[in-house]
C-alpha cells in the first residue's frame, strides 16, 4: 500500500515530464497534388514494372487509395524527386497491410516520403538486395494512437541496406528489420516512435552512424520465440547517438498498459534494450539523457510470456559493451513508472530509489551452465572506461517478485573476453553491400 501511494504521488509529479512529439521533418501540405490520372499511372507503373527498369516519381503529393506493390522483379529502382518533393500518402488506403510492398531482387527505393499508412509504411519481404536510401516514412496524425506499426520494414530479406532514412511516429518500431540476414542500418534518423531502430531475429546486422532520439526506446535487439527464423546472432551497434529517448510508450492506448506485443513493455527512457539477444557488440555510442536506463541487458523471461520454442533460447548471451559515452541527464528526469521494467529500475536498482541507471542487467542465467552468476555464465562483458562513474545494477529476479535483489558490483562482468560479433563475416558483408 505504501508503495502504491508512493507511485501515485510520483505519477502526478512525473506527468509534467512525460514527453510526446508530433514533429514533422517536412511539410507536405504545400506540395502540388498529383492528379487522379497521375496516381493511377503510378499504381500501374508498379504493376507493369519490368526487370532492370526505373520507376521515377515526379514531385507531388500522391493520394493513394490502393497499395503500391512491386512483385518479384529484379534490379528495379524506384526514385522520387526528394524526401520533401515526392510524398506518397496512404491516408485513404482502403485495404492492404502496408502502403508500399516490395518482393524481388536487387531493389532500390530512394528520395521520397511515405505518409500515414494504416498498417506498415513500406515492407520488403523475401528480397535479396534491398536498399532504402533517403526515404522518410512518417505519420501526420495529431493523435498518435492512429499511427501504423512499422515505418521501414524489411522482413525475411537478405543484404539489406538502410541509409540516410528518416522514420518517425510509428506505433511500434520506426526502422524494423526482422528475420533477415546481412544488414546495414546507417546514418539514419529515428524519432517519435515507440522503438527507434529494432533488429529482431536477424543475423549479422551493423547499426552505425544513426541518431535514435525522442523514442520510448532508442535501439532494440530482440529474439522472439515461435518464428520461422529462430535465434539471430551477431549485431554490432556503434557510433550512434542514442539520446533523449523519453517519449511515451504509445504502442497501446494510455491506460491500457502492455498487451502481447513485446514493444508495449518498453519503459520510456530506454536507450538500448537487448532481449534474448545473442552476440551483440555495442561500442563508441553516445548514450545520453535516457531517463530510465542507458543499456538494458535482459532475458525473455522478464516478459512473463511462455519462454519455450524450437531453435531459440530466452537468454541473452555473448554481449560486449565497451567504450560508450553515458550521460544520465538532469536530476529531475526520473525513471519511468508506467511499465514494469521501469518500476523495477525505479524501486529496486542498487543505487537508490528513482535513480536513472546507465547499465542494467536482469541477471537471469541458464542454471544448467552454472550454479551462480559469479562465473558470468552468459558471457556479458562490460568494459567501459568510465565504469566507476556509471550506475550499474545487476538484479536477481529468479525467485519471483517477492524476493528481488540488486547489486552494484560489476567486477564479475568486467574481466572477461568478449566474443566479438563476428568481425570477419561483417567485413565480408561490407564489401558486398557497399
Amino acid at each position, binding site marked *: 500500500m505504501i508503495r502504491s501511494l508512493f507511485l501515485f504521488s510520483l505519477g502526478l509529479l512525473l506527468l509534467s515530464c512525460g514527453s510526446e512529439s508530433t514533429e514533422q521533418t517536412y511539410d507536405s501540405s504545400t506540395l502540388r497534388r498529383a492528379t487522379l490520372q497521375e496516381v493511377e499511372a503510378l499504381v500501374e507503373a508498379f504493376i507493369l514494372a519490368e526487370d532492370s527498369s526505373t520507376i521515377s516519381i515526379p514531385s507531388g503529393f500522391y493520394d493513394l487509395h490502393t497499395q503500391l506493390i512491386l512483385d*518479384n522483379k529484379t534490379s528495379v529502382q524506384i526514385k522520387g524527386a526528394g524526401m520533401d518533393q515526392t510524398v506518397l500518402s496512404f491516408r485513404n488506403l482502403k485495404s492492404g497491410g502496408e502502403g508500399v510492398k516490395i518482393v524481388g531482387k536487387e531493389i532500390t527505393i530512394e528520395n521520397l516520403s511515405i505518409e500515414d499508412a*494504416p498498417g*506498415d509504411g513500406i515492407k520488403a*519481404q523475401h528480397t535479396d538486395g534491398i536498399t532504402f536510401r533517403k526515404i522518410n516514412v512518417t505519420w501526420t496524425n495529431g493523435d498518435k494512437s492512429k499511427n501504423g506499426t512499422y515505418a521501414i520494414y524489411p522482413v525475411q530479406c537478405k543484404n539489406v541496406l538502410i541509409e540516410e532514412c528518416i522514420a518517425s511516429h510509428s506505433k511500434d518500431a520506426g526502422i524494423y528489420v526482422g528475420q533477415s540476414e546481412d544488414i546495414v542500418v546507417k546514418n539514419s534518423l529515428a524519432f517519435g516512435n515507440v522503438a527507434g531502430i529494432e533488429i529482431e531475429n536477424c543475423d549479422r546486422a551493423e547499426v552505425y552512424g544513426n541518431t535514435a532520439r525522442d523514442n520510448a526506446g532508442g535501439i532494440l535487439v530482440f529474439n522472439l520465440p515461435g518464428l520461422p527464423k529462430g535465434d539471430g546472432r551477431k549485431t554490432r551497434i556503434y557510433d550512434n547517438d542514442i539520446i533523449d529517448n523519453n517519449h511515451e510508450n504509445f504502442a497501446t492506448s494510455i491506460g491500457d498498459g502492455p498487451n*502481447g*506485443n513485446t514493444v508495449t513493455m518498453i519503459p520510456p527512457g530506454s536507450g538500448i534494450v537487448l532481449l534474448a539477444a545473442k552476440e551483440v557488440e555495442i561500442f563508441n555510442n553516445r548514450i545520453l539523457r535516457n531517463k530510465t536506463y542507458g543499456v538494458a541487458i535482459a532475458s525473455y523471461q522478464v516478459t512473463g510470456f511462455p519462454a519455450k520454442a524450437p531453435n531459440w533460447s530466452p537468454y541473452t548471451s555473448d554481449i560486449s559493451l565497451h567504450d560508450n559515452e553515458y550521460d544520465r541527464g538532469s536530476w529531475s528526469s526520473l525513471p519511468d513508472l*508506467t511499465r514494469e521494467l521501469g518500476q523495477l529500475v525505479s524501486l529496486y536498482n542498487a543505487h537508490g530509489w528513482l535513480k536513472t541507471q546507465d547499465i542494467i542487467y536482469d541477471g537471469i542465467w541458464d542454471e544448467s551452465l552454472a550454479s551462480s552468476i559469479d562465473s558470468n555464465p552468459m558471457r556479458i562483458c562490460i568494459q567501459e572506461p568510465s565504469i566507476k562513474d556509471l550506475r550499474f545494477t545487476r538484479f536477481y*529476479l529468479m525467485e519471483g517478485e517477492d524476493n528481488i535483489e540488486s547489486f552494484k558490483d560489476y567486477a564479475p562482468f568486467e574481466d572477461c573476453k568478449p566474443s566479438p560479433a563476428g568481425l570477419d563475416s561483417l567485413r565480408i558483408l561490407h564489401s558486398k553491400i557497399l
Partner: protein
Amino acid sequence: MDGSSPNFSTWVFTLIFLSLMWSCQSATKEESKASIPEEILAPEEATGKFPYRRLSTYGFFEGEMAQLAPNPSLIRYQPASSLFTDYALKSRFAYLPDGQKAILEGEELNLPQGTILVKNFYYPSDFRNPEGERRIIETRLMIHEETGWQAYPYLWNESQTDAVLKVVGSEVVVKYVDSQGEEQLINYLVPNKNQCKSCHNKNETLAPLGVQTKHLNHEIAFKDGSDNQLAHWTKLGKLEGFLGEAAHPSLINYEDKNQALEDRAMAYLDINCSHCHQAEGPASTSGLFLTYGQKDPLKLGVFKTPVAAGKGSGKHTYDIVPGQADASILLHRMNSTEMGVAMPEIGRTSIHAEGVALIREWINQMNYK
C-alpha cells in the same frame, strides 16, 4: 514479472491522463465518389495473346454476357468451403485447353499451361431470392501462362454488357437486401492486380487457391447429375491420377452444421486465412499457421504472443486464449473493419458475422491445459 495485469500506477495514470490530456480531434474526411462515365468499348479481336482488354473477347459466355452461361468448354467448380468476400456470391469455371489434362499427384493438382480460371463476383439485389436480379461486380481471371500464373481483374460496366481489364483496381458501392431482409451498403474493393498475390501466394509465386485437390474433392451438382468434381473432370478426359475420393485429401464445408465444430473451424481458417498463414505464405513471418491439418498449439496461436501485429493486438496478449474468445487476438481481428486491425488484410470491408460466431464458439469450447 507478469506482463498482463494492470497495476495501481497504471490506473492512476489512466485517470490523470483522461482528465488532463488528450484533446484529440478525429479528422473524418468524407470522400465524394466520382462516378466513372460508362466507357464506350472499342472492339477487340481474339488474337490469342493475353490478357484481352475486354472480358467478352475470351468468349467464355454464350448469349447475353450477364447471364454468365458458360460455353461447353468451361467446367463449373466449387470449393468445399468458400473464402468470405463481403458476402459476394461467386460463380467459378475452369477452362483447360483442348486435348490437355490436369495431373493429380498426391495432393498436388497440376494444371496445364493455357488453363484459365474464371471467377465472377456478384450480388443479388435480394439475397432472399439469389437467382433473381443481380449485379456482377468483377470477374477475375487466372491464366496459366508460359511464365507461370497471372491474375487479371475485370471490372463490369453499369449496363452489365461487358467487363474491362482494370489492373489498378477499383471501388464499387453495392446495395442489396440481405437474407434477413435488411438493406445493406458495401464499399466493395476490386483489388489491384498485384494485390491478388497477397492471397494467391505460394513461395512468392502466384498460385490458384480454390482449385486444389482438397477443395475440389467432393460432390457438386452438374447438369447431368451430382458427381465428385475430380471424378467428373476424369470422365471429361481433363484429369489424370484421380484414385477415388478416399485416396485424396478433402476439406469439409464449414457451413455444414452436421460436421464437428473443430473441423468446421479449421476448414474456415484454412480457406480464409491459410493462404497467407502457412509456411509458404507471406504471413509466415508471424509463425501463426492456420492450415487445416495444423496440430501444434503454438503454431495455431494458442498462448502465442503476436510479432508484428501492432494495433491489431488490441488489449490482448495471445492469439488464442482457450475458452476466452473475446480475449483472443484472432477473433479481435476477424471482428474488426479497421485498417491495420482487420484480418484478412484485403478482400473484405465488412465483418463476416457467421464466421466470427463459428470461431468464437470454437475458441470458447477449446480445452487446453
